[in-house]
C-alpha cells in the first residue's frame, strides 16, 4: 500500500486553497494603505495590478485555447 502523501488528503488541499484566498483578501485590503509614487497615473488606481494580472491570465488562456491551439495543433507524427 502506497504511503499517504500530503495532498492525497482532500482536507489538506482545501486548507491550501483557503489560505490562498485569505492571502488574496489581505493583499486587496492593505493595498489601500500603501503610499504610491508611480510613473503612470493608473499605477495609483486601487487594485490595478490585481485586476490586470487576473484579466491578463484569463485572456492568455482563452486566446491560447480557442484561437492559437485550433490554428497550430497537429498530430505528434506530423513532421515524420
Amino acid at each position, binding site marked *: 500500500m*502506497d*504511503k499517504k*502523501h500530503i*495532498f*492525497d488528503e482532500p482536507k489538506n488541499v482545501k486548507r491550501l*486553497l483557503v489560505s*490562498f484566498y485569505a*492571502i*488574496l483578501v489581505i*493583499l*486587496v485590503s*492593505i*493595498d489601500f494603505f*500603501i*503610499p*504610491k*509614487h*508611480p*510613473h*503612470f497615473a493608473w*499605477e495609483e488606481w486601487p*487594485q*490595478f*495590478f*490585481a*485586476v*490586470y*494580472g*487576473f484579466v*491578463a*491570465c*484569463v485572456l*492568455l*488562456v*482563452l*486566446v*491560447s*485555447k480557442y484561437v*492559437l*491551439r485550433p490554428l*497550430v*495543433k*497537429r*498530430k*505528434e507524427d*506530423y*513532421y515524420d
Partner: protein
Amino acid sequence: MINALHPALIFIAGALLIPLLKGKAKSAYMLLLPALSFMNLLQIPAGQHWVIGFLDYNLTLCRIDRLSMVFGYIFHIISFISILYALNVKDDGQHVAAVLYSGAALGVVYAGDLFTLFIFWEIMAVTATYLIWARRTRASSSAGMRYLLVHLFGGLCLLIGILLQLHNTGSLEFSHIGLNGLASALIFIGFGINCAWPGFHSWLTDAYPEATITGTIFLSAFTTKCAVYALARGYAGTDLLIWIGAAMAAFPIFYAVIENDLRRVLSYSLINQVGFMVVGIGIGTELGINGAVAHAFADILFKGLLFMAMGAVMHQTGKINCTDLGGLYKSMPFTALFCIIGAASISAFPLFSAFATKSMVMDATAKDHLTGVWFILLFASAGVFHHAGIKIPFFAFFSHDSGIRTKEAPLNMLLAMGIAAFLCIFIGSFPGYLYSILPYPVDYQPYTAPHVMAQLQLLFFSALAFTLLMLSGIYPAEIRAINVDADWTYRKGAKAFMWMLTNPMTKLGAWISRTVFELIPSSLGWASKNPVAVIKIAADSLLLKFAVPEKRDEIKMRIQREKEIYPGDIIRHWPIGSVVLLAILFFLAYLLVNYMTGAKH
C-alpha cells in the same frame, strides 16, 4: 606583460584532456576547470590584451571591461553548476563538447574584435550541435541538423556583415555599431538569429527539447546570452530592439500554455525572458542596459535550475510530457522544492532573483514613457508566472497522480540544483552584490512598498486565474499533440522543395532532355535522309487538311505510299553529277562575291 592565460584557453585546452582521465579523477578535473579558469580570469587587468597582427589587421583576443566581466562571472558560475550536474553522464564526447562550448562562449564575450568573435561564434554553433546530436534519437539528429543549418546561415550573415564593415570602416574593432546601412544590418541579423528573435526563434524551441538532458543546461545558458551581450555591446539604444523584445516577451507565452513537452515550455519561456533583456538593450539608457545584463545573469541561473529540475524528472522517469507526469512530489521532494524555487525566481516573487532584475527593465520602460511596451511587458510578467511559474511545477510534481514512483535524482544533480537555487534566492534577497558588478553605477531600489505590493498582487491574482480556470475545467487539457511554429516554413518548406525537385522539376528535366537530345536530332536525322520526300509528305499532309472530301482517300493513300517507301532511292533522284554541278555553282557564286567586294578596296 601579464602572467595569465587567455580567458577561454583553460576551457578549450582543458576539454581535450577529459577523455584521458577516469573515474573520480575525471570528475575532480572537470570541476577544477571552471575554478582554475575563474582564478586565471581574476589575474587579467582591465584593458585590451593579446593584440596580434593578422594580415594587415590587428586582432584583439581579449578585452576586459565591466560589460564583458559580468558575463564572464556568470559563465564561470553556470559552467561549474552544469558540469557538476552532468558528472554522472558516461559520455566523453558530451563532456568535451560541453566544456569546449563554454570556453567558446567566454571567447565571444572577451573578443575585442569582430573576427575573433566570429571564430568563437562558429565554434559555439558546432559544439552546441554535438550536444543535440548526442541524445542519439532520430528526432535529435534531425533537430540538430536544422539547428546547425540555421546557425550556419546566421554565421554567414554575420561574416558578410563583418567583411562589409571592414571594407567600409577599415577596422575590425567590436564596439558600438548601431543600425546604419547594410553591413551593420547583416551583423544585427547575425546576432538576432542567435538571440531567437521572432521568426528566427524556432531553432531554439525545436532543438533544446531534443538535446541531451545535461546538454540542454549548457545550451540554455550560453547561445542566447552571448547574443544579448553582443547586442548590448554593438546595438545599445537601437529603437527597433524595443519592439523586437516586446514581441519576444509576449508571443511565446501563448505557445507555452498549450505545449505538452515541459522542456519545450521552458524553451518558450526562455525566449520570453530574453525579450525583457532585448527591450532593455533597445532602450539603451544606463538603467536599461544594467537591467538587461542583470536579468541575463539571473536568467542563466533560474532557467538553468528549471531545466535541471525537468532534466532530473526526465532522468528518473524517462518522461517529460505533461500528459505522462504528475504527483512526483511524492518521490522527488527535493527536485520539486528546487523547481518551485526556480519557478518563484522566474516569476519575480519578492526575495527571488528576477524581482530585483526584471523590474529594472520595467522601470526603464516606464522612465522613457513607453506605455505600450510597458503594458506588453506587464502582460508577459503575468503570463510567465502562469506558464513557467505554475504550469511547470504543477504538472510535473502535483496535478493528477500519474502513478509513477521513482527515486530522487542522483546526488550530483541535487547539489547542482541546490547551488543554483541558493544563488537565485541570494540575488533576490541581496541584490546589492549583483548591482555592484553591473556595467553602470546602479541607482535603483527594488524593495519599495508599492513595488512589492504591485508584484504580489499581479502574481497572486494570476494564480487565482489559474486556480479558477483549473477548478472550472476551462483550462486547456493537456493533449498529446505538437504545435506548429515558424520552423514549419523550413521543415515543410524543405519537403515541398524536395517534392518540387523530384516531381515537376525532374519531369520537366526529363522532357527537355528527351526533346532536345533525342526527339529533335532523330527527326532531323530522319528528315535529312531525303528532304525532298519529307517536303512531299508535308505538302500532302497539308493538302489533306484543305482537300474536298472526295479527294481525301486518294491523298491518304498517297501519303501512306510515300511513308512506306521513305527514304526511298535517293541516289536515283540525286545523281552524283548534279551534286557536283551544285557545288561548282556555289563556288562560282562565292568567287564572284569575293571578287566584287575585293574590287571595292
